[in-house]
């Protein structure tokens, strides 16, 4: 298999085999003219190149292996490149920090054996974008609800409030347990209500992880491009409807980081 290097600018990669370096892999895309936005730079400020076969290509950047990677800069570069690629076509994001040794490896170990997998995934993701939604309770409001709704919590609270900090350990523990359980139930209920209002607008959803007293829902949605406006509008309305006790935070559109499986 002959490596196909598609560079949007100069043919800078001709002598690269002499370099002691690797290939930072951002994503897998379908190769096309101008698939990489002009001037897009990635890790260490280098250009983003496509290395691939006819049907699928890896978007990569050269990276020296003997240098400290500078984690922050690379993380930001990774995110920037993947999202920029997602703006003009389907992308399959590769996990942050993936570096391969050479083009042969990219072709023969990444792309060729997984060609069908990548093609199917790209097809599924085409015309869709990811949004991350986080719903949080207004902590004071939801705790007030919990206190109002449960007599034992109310009593324990009133009792332990009068104690010194080092007293009533058992009661405090019991109180905390009851509150945690009450919140858990509220979460189950409210999360289901929120999701019912949102799922008609989404093609897929994937749970994310988030915790804390105020945590309610943390989920990634895959939304078809033609529904995006309606989806955003629905969330806007929902946010208004629940704002007295719940805060909604929507990030996106993003590359479909949570919808590429990965196992």
């Amino acid at each position: 298999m002959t490596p196909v290097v598609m560079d949007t600018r100069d043919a800078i990669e001709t002598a690269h085999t002499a370099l002691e370096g690797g290939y930072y892999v951002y994503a897998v895309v379908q190769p096309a003219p101008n698939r990489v936005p002009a001037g897009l730079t990635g890790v260490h400020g280098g250009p983003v190149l496509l290395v691939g076969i006819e049907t699928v290509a890896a978007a990569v950047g050269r990276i020296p292996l003997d240098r400290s990677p500078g984690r922050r800069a690379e993380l930001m570069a990774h995110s920037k490149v993947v999202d920029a690629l997602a703006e003009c076509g389907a992308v399959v994001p590769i996990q942050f920090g993936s570096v391969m040794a050479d083009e042969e490896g990219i072709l023969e170990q990444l792309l060729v054996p997984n060609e069908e997998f990548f093609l199917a995934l790209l097809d599924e993701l085409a015309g869709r974008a990811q949004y991350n939604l986080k719903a949080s309770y207004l902590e004071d409001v939801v705790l007030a609800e919990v206190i109002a709704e449960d007599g034992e919590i109310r009593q324990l609270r009133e009792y332990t409030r009068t104690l010194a900090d080092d007293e009533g350990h058992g009661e405090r523990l019991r109180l905390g347990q009851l509150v945690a359980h009450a919140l858990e139930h509220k979460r189950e209920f409210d999360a289901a209500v929120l999701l019912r209002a949102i799922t008609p607008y989404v093609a897929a959803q994937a749970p994310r992880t988030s915790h804390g007293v105020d945590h309610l829902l943390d989920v990634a949605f895959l939304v078809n491009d033609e529904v995006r406006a309606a989806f955003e509008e629905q969330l806007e309305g929902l946010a208004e409807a629940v704002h007295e006790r719940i805060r909604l935070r929507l990030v996106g559109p993003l590359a479909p980081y949570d919808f590429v499986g990965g196992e």
Partner: protein
Amino acid sequence: MTVQTSRRRGGGYLERPAPSGLADVIEIILDKGIVIDAYVRVSLVGIELLTIDARIVIASVDTYLRFAEATNRLDLVEHGGGKPLDDFIGNLQEKGASKKTSGAVKGVKKAITGGGKDDDEEGRRPARKSSQARRRQSEEA
């Protein structure tokens, strides 16, 4: 996408932050994406610092005490200017979620630390194929 600006639209209740900071970006991309088999991958030095997943069981004594503390800290009189508490129970709650639960609240927390935060690093481990499986397990109960 990357050029989003923070904005409020419509009624202005939906927060639409632009994910510009390191912490936001970590939250969005950490542990996400296709994992290339370790044997064909040259890992970046230092990457493991970012793929921390410290497991914290939520049903811990500390957590319960934290809940108790949050509950006790709440000043009910001040909050909402003396409105009856029931008024705070919004429309989503009207149908009345049952209050009693059984079983421990269990969960696994994925602690994500941003730049310069060292306290969770004992849980660090290199990116591995199983990270997706670990994440699945860690979905909240």
